[in-house]
């Protein structure tokens, strides 16, 4: 219920435009001024306090695949205004605005990539696009990613984020939860690993479907993770929320995650996990024993 939308909950979101364009950036956590280039070199993690700034889609793709190995799948999928939804603006106008802002068609990019020695099916969600809300395109692309991963016997990795449902697509949006979970049931039955990485924020329908169905579930430090948004919970219960409620660390403590992994260790940790979960590469053929060749 009350899957919240985008652009409203300042506690949940930090938009790119909130990051000043200058050479220096003020860290919202430690208030230090950080040199922009230094921040980018550190994968958008504050060198002083380890605060994890938002990480752009392309940067995330680059982090989670070996250079030049990413091959995009299903790039041609575009959302349509199936309900002719008009709120304060039409859905078509919202889509266009977000496409122009992000340069992408929708809130997820999927494809095949190499990570270490592993070929993986990789999905990266993008909060910049309509709060990474899940409509039919996100649901379809995740389902295809997982299905293709099953056919090609690939592990699936998805960097998740989402602020809520794609309200403009009504109940179609909700049904993407079922669709993606169904695809994962088959991937799991094929005994292939699936690892979601929960980034800030991961909530609502995405959280109550594919983000939570991992064999191993990883979160980034400080990420807000939950089903209902904190504001909704506060309004419903009229209770003060516990300190750190719905943070990655809070979930770890409550036993809901496998690990919280800093961004700079994410790649090596994922490779290590895949090394454990995927069959080892075929061993080098042994040289023929010398004794056998003697007459």
């Amino acid at each position, binding site marked *: *219920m*009350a*899957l*919240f*939308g985008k652009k409203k909950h300042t506690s949940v979101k930090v938009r790119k435009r909130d990051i000043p364009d200058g050479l220096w950036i003020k860290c919202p956590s430690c208030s230090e001024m950080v040199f922009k280039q230094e921040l*980018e070199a550190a994968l958008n993690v504050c060198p002083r306090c380890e605060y994890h700034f938002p990480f752009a889609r392309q*940067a995330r*793709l*680059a*982090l989670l695949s070996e250079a030049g190995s990413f091959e995009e799948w*299903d790039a*041609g*999928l*575009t959302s*349509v205004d*199936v*309900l002719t939804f008009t*709120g*304060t603006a039409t859905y078509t106008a919202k889509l266009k605005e977000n*496409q*122009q802002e*992000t*340069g992408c068609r929708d809130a997820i990019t999927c494809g095949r990539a190499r990570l270490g020695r592993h070929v993986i099916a990789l999905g990266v969600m993008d909060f910049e696009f309509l709060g990474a809300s899940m409509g*039919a395109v996100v*649901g*379809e692309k995740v389902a295809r990613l997982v299905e293709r991963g099953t056919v090609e016997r690939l592990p699936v990795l998805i960097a998740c984020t989402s602020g*809520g449902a794609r*309200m403009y*697509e*009504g*109940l*179609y949006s*909700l*049904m*993407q*939860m*079922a*669709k993606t*979970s*169904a*695809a*994962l*049931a*088959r991937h799991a039955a094929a005994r292939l690993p699936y690892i979601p990485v929960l980034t800030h924020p991961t909530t609502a*329908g995405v959280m*109550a479907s594919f*983000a*939570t*169905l991992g064999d191993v579930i990883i979160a980034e430090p400080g990420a807000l993770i*939950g*089903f*209902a948004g904190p504001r*909704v*919970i506060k309004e*419903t*219960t009229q*209770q003060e929320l516990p300190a750190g*409620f*719905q943070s990655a660390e809070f979930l770890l403590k*409550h036993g809901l995650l496998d690990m919280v992994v800093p961004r700079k260790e994410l790649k090596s940790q994922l490779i290590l996990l895949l090394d454990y979960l995927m069959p080892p590469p075929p061993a080098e053929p042994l040289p023929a024993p010398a004794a056998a060749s003697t007459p």
Partner: protein
Amino acid sequence: MAAYALPFEKPLAELNRKLEELRGFGRKQNVDVAADLAQMERKIAETREKIFAQLTPWQIVQVARHPLRPYALDYVREMFVDFSELHGDRIHRDDRAIFGGLAKLGEHRVMVIGTQKGRDTKGNLEVNFGCAYPEGYRKALRLMRLAAKFNLPIITLIDTPGAYPGIESEERHIAEAIAVNLREMFTFAVPMLVTIIGEGGSGGALGIGVGDRVLMLQYAYYSVISPEGCAAILWKNRSYADRAAAALKITSRDLLAMKLADEIVPEPLGGAHVDPRQMGATLKQILLRHLLELKQVPPDELLERRYAKFRAMGVFAEQPAAAAAPVAAPGAAVQP
């Protein structure tokens, strides 16, 4: 009839009051008022027909939430016999917002699971206004597994504003409870019939809402977000819920057209609360028809069709890969 009337039901309530007055007058004065009574009843029927022929989506939401509307356990009483309720998730507690148990529908032994609302304050506190905690969904999962093990069809009756958004809900991982249910409901090789009988509140409804058939009562609604919640986000004003209800396309007629519901179960004129008996009888007959059909389908085929059914939900455009260059975006190049 109604001790409670929705705003648009008021003319009906007024006519009903007059009808009772006339009847009382006839009795007291020993006057034959039969002709007047008959005329009055015709007038009531016409008025009801007129009102219900043009309900707006927001009014339909009001009917779905009507305090007199039959709730899931009312249907269990009307449609099933020998109901044996089974309790608890075996981990934390017995969530009363979701009930389940073994029952007979006609000659069929089934598992029936439903979300339950309360009739009064005490009842609502017991069932948390029909909003389940994680343990409710985990109880449902346990009972579905039990059903699959013993080859019993699963019938779910859904009427919930949504899963409960609370601190403990999050701590016990409501998202996981729903997600796991979604995945597992695609693995039970028994017929699964879903009926939205009142409110289909988002993930809380879908959490027991995957099946081979999804039926909707005529004045039920099923939505990804409550109209009030949608209005608060899009219009910054909850009183725009009527606009949101229309925009979201949440009525049975809309969802049938969108192929998200398979069949509309007709309600008695004036809504299910006017004649719960008849409502139960209608739903029972329709459930039996689907159950008979589904029992003919081999288990593997059943799972295959269920997958295909939900896999097909969603509308999008697709350009051929070659034409799928990124949309133009000034200054969108991002530093990796």
